C-alpha cells in the first residue's frame, strides 16, 4: 500500500505532463462569457484529439489512443492542474457517442465519431421530462411513424448544454399500448432542426445551467434510430452505464475554507473556531471528505491493477452533495446575522458558501436523487430486492398519472 505509480504509469505521467506543459492554453478563463470559453474549449479539444489524448481508452481507429483506464485517470489528473477548459464534451463523449457506437450503422458512426472526438460537434442527452425524473421510463415525448420518417412531439427537461449542442440522443415513446419499458425507442437528432426549441431553466440558485427542450413536429429519418423499435430502454441503459464516468461529484468550498472562515470570524472574546460544537462538526466533515478522496484512490487502484473498480465509487455524490449543503449552512451560521448576505463584495470567499448552499440543493437531486442512489446501493451493491412495481404489466396509456 503506497501512493506510487508503477514504472509504466510514471512514464506515461511524465510524458503527459510534458505535453500539457508545452500545449495547454495559457488563458485566464475566469469571468469570460460561456461562448468565449467554449471557443477555447473546442480549440483545446482539437489539440488533444490530434495528439491522441482526447479519448485515451478508445481504439486508435476511432480517434483514440488504445490506452488503459488508468492512463485516462492520470491524464485527467495532470490536465486538471493546468487549468484547461473542460466539461463541454463529457456527456457527448462519455454517454452519447458510446451509445451511437454501440447501436448506429457504420455510416452514422463514420459521420459522427471523429467530429465529436475533435470537439467540432457537441452532443447532449435528452431523457428526463417534467413527469419522468427518477422514473425516466415513464416519459411521454412521443414519436409517430410517418412513412420513412418519425415525427416527434413533446418536452424534455434538465438537458445540460442543449443551448450549445449540435446533436442529441433522445428517448421517446413509440408505443403507448404496451407497458412503459417496452414502448420506448432511441433516436439521434439534429438540435438545429427548426422544430427544436431550447429554453434555459431559471434555477432556485439564480443561474441557468440546464434547459428545457421542446419538440414540435420534429421529423427524423428511420435511419436515425439507435437500436430496434421498442428497444429504447435497453439502449438507454447502455447510455446510463457510462453516466457514472460523466457526472462528477460536488465542487465548492470545503473544510479548509470553512476552517479559515471560522478562524477569521469573531465570536465572543475569541473566534468561531474556538466553538466546541463547531469543531466537532468540522472534524466530521474532514473525515468524510478525506474518506471520499481515499475511496476514489481505491477505485483508481483497481484500475491500475487492471480490475473493474468496486461498488465503493457509488457513494461519491450522495456524500459530497449532502456535505456541501450541511457545510455551507454551517458556514452561514458561523457568520451569525451577517450570514444572510450573498453579495460577493461583502460576504467572505466572494459569497462562496451562500452560493453553494443554494447549489447543493440541486446537487442532491441531479444525476440520481439521494433516494434513488440509496435504492441503487441497496439493490445493485447489496443485492436487496427491487421495489414492487405496480405499473409493470400495465399498458403505458392506462397508467395512473396523477393528472
Amino acid at each position, binding site marked *: *500500500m*503506497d*501512493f*506510487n*505509480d*508503477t514504472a509504466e*504509469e510514471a512514464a506515461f*505521467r511524465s510524458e503527459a505532463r510534458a505535453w500539457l506543459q508545452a500545449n495547454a492554453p495559457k488563458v485566464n478563463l475566469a469571468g469570460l462569457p460561456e461562448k468565449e470559453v467554449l471557443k477555447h474549449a473546442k480549440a483545446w479539444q482539437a489539440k488533444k484529439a490530434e495528439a491522441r489524448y482526447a479519448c485515451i481508452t478508445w481504439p486508435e481507429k476511432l480517434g483514440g489512443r488504445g490506452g488503459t483506464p*488508468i492512463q485516462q485517470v*492520470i491524464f485527467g*489528473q*495532470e490536465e486538471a492542474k493546468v487549468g484547461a477548459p473542460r466539461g463541454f464534451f463529457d456527456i457527448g463523449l462519455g454517454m452519447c457517442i458510446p451509445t451511437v457506437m454501440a447501436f448506429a450503422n457504420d455510416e452514422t458512426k463514420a459521420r459522427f465519431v471523429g467530429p465529436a472526438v475533435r470537439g467540432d460537434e457537441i452532443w447532449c442527452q435528452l431523457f428526463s421530462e417534467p413527469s419522468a425524473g427518477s422514473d425516466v421510463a415513464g416519459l411521454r415525448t412521443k414519436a409517430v411513424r410517418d412513412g420513412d420518417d418519425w415525427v416527434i412531439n413533446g418536452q424534455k427537461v434538465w438537458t445540460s448544454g442543449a443551448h450549445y449542442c449540435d446533436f442529441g440522443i433522445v428517448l421517446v415513446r413509440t408505443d403507448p399500448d404496451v407497458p412503459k419499458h417496452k414502448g420506448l425507442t432511441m433516436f439521434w437528432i439534429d438540435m438545429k432542426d427548426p422544430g427544436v426549441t431550447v429554453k434555459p431553466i431559471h434555477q432556485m440558485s439564480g443561474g441557468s445551467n440546464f434547459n428545457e427542450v421542446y419538440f414540435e413536429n420534429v421529423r427524423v429519418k428511420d435511419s436515425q434510430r439507435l437500436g430496434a423499435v421498442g428497444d429504447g430502454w435497453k439502449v438507454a441503459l447502455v447510455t446510463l452505464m457510462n453516466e457514472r464516468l460523466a457526472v462528477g461529484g460536488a465542487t465548492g468550498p470545503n*473544510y*479548509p475554507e470553512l*476552517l*479559515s472562515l471560522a*478562524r477569521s470570524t469573531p465570536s465572543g472574546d475569541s473566534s468561531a*473556531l474556538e466553538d*466546541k460544537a463547531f*469543531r*466537532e462538526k*468540522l*472534524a*466530521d466533515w*474532514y*473525515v*468524510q471528505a*478525506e*474518506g*471520499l*478522496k*481515499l*475511496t*476514489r*484512490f*481505491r477505485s*483508481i*487502484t*483497481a*484500475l*491500475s*491493477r487492471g480490475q473493474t473498480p468496486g461498488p*465503493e465509487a457509488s*457513494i461519491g455524490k*450522495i*456524500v459530497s452533495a449532502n456535505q456541501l449543503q450541511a457545510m455551507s449552512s454551517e458556514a452561514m451560521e458561523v457568520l451569525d446575522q451577517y450570514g444572510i448576505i450573498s453579495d460577493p463584495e461583502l460576504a467572505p470567499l466572494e459569497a462562496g458558501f451562500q452560493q453553494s448552499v443554494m447549489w447543493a440543493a440541486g446537487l442532491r437531486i441531479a444525476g440520481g436523487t439521494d*433516494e434513488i*442512489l*440509496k*435504492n441503487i*446501493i*441497496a*439493490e445493485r*451493491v*447489496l443485492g*436487496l*430486492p*427491487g*421495489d*414492487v412495481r405496480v405499473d409493470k404489466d400495465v399498458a403505458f396509456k392506462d397508467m395512473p398519472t396523477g393528472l
Partner: protein
Amino acid sequence: MTADRATGAKPVNFDYSDDQKFLKSEARKFLDARATAKVNRAVLDDPAKSYDPELWKAVAEMGWLGAAIPEAFGGLGLGHIDLCAIAEELGRVVAPIPFASTVYFFAEAVLLAGTEAQKADLLPKVASGELIGCFATSEGPGAATAASLSTTVLDGAINGVKIPVTDGDIAHKAIVLASEGGKPGLFIVDLATAGKETLKTLDPSRSAAKLTFAAQPAERLGGVGEGIALMEAIFDRAAVLIAFEQVGGADKCLEMAKEYALGRYAFGRTIAGYQAIKHKLADIYVKNELARSNAYYGAWALNTSAPELPIAASAARIAGCEAFWFAAKENVQTHGGMGFTWAVDAHLYYRRAKQLGLVAGAARSWKERLVSQLERRNAA
C-alpha cells in the same frame, strides 16, 4: 515528505497487496472455524472467564501476535498492513482474546519507545503468546491528563489506582501512565503482585479490571516527562489497528442485517424490499466504505511512520467509531424484536462497538485532536 503527499496525483496502489489478501482470507477461514459466536458467548456468559485461552493459543501459533514484530525480536516481521488485515478479521468475529491490549497497545508501545534491552526482553514473549500485556492510563471518568494523574512513581516503585484497564485482570505486565516527580511518564509494571479486581462492563467478552499498585517495581519506558506525548503516539498506532477491527465488525453487522432482512417477511413480502430498510442498509454501507478508506490511509501512515500519522489515525478512529456504532445499532433495529434478545448475536456487536469506541479514547476527544492538528497544518 509533505503533509498532503496523498492528495497528490498518484494514488494507484491503495489497497491490500495480493499476499495480504491471501493472509486475510486464510485468517477468515481460520476464525470462521475457531472463533464462532459460541466462543464469544462462552466468555460473555461466564463471569469467571475473562478470555478464551484456547483461541489465544491458536492465534499465537498462527504467528499473528508477532505479525508486525521484527524477526529479530521473535516476530514475523510482516509489517503493519498485514497486522491491519488480521485486525479486520478479528473484528468481524468479535474475538474474545486480549489481542488489542497485547499487540496494538503493549507491543506497539515497546516498539515505539522501548530500549533494545526492553524489546529483546518483552517482544519475543508477546510474539509467542506467553505474555499478555495491557495499557493502563484511565483513573476515573474523563480522559487522563498530566494534571489529573494521581498514580505516582517514586524511586522505581509505583502507587495508585487505574480503572478501567482492559485485560488488566489477565495481563502479566502493564504499561502504566504515572507521574514521577510531577512529570508524566510511562512505566512497565509486572502485575504478579498488583491488586486486580475484574469489573462489570458492557462487553464482558473483553474483560477489564481495576488495578491497584502498592509499591510494585516500575521500569520507565521512554524518557522522563514524555508520558503524555508517548501515550498519544501509542493511541495513534492503536487507533489505526482498532479502526480495522471496527471496519470488520461494521461489515459483519451489515451482512447480518441484510441476511435477516432478506429472510424476514412482513405485510406479505420480504422486509428487505422496503425502502425504509434498503435506505438504512445503504446508509450503513456508505459509512463503512468511508471508514475503510480512512483506515487504509491510517494503515499506510502507520506502516511508513509518516508524519501524517496523527491526522490519519484521528480520521481512521473517528470514521471507525462512527461506522461500527451505526452499523451495530441499526443491525439490532433491522432485526426488530429478535434483535433485542440475548439469543441473537446482534448484541455481541453492539457491545463490542461501544467497547472499541472507548478503549482508545472517545471519538469526541479525537475530533478535538484532529481539528487542533488541522489548525496547525493550516497555519503552517
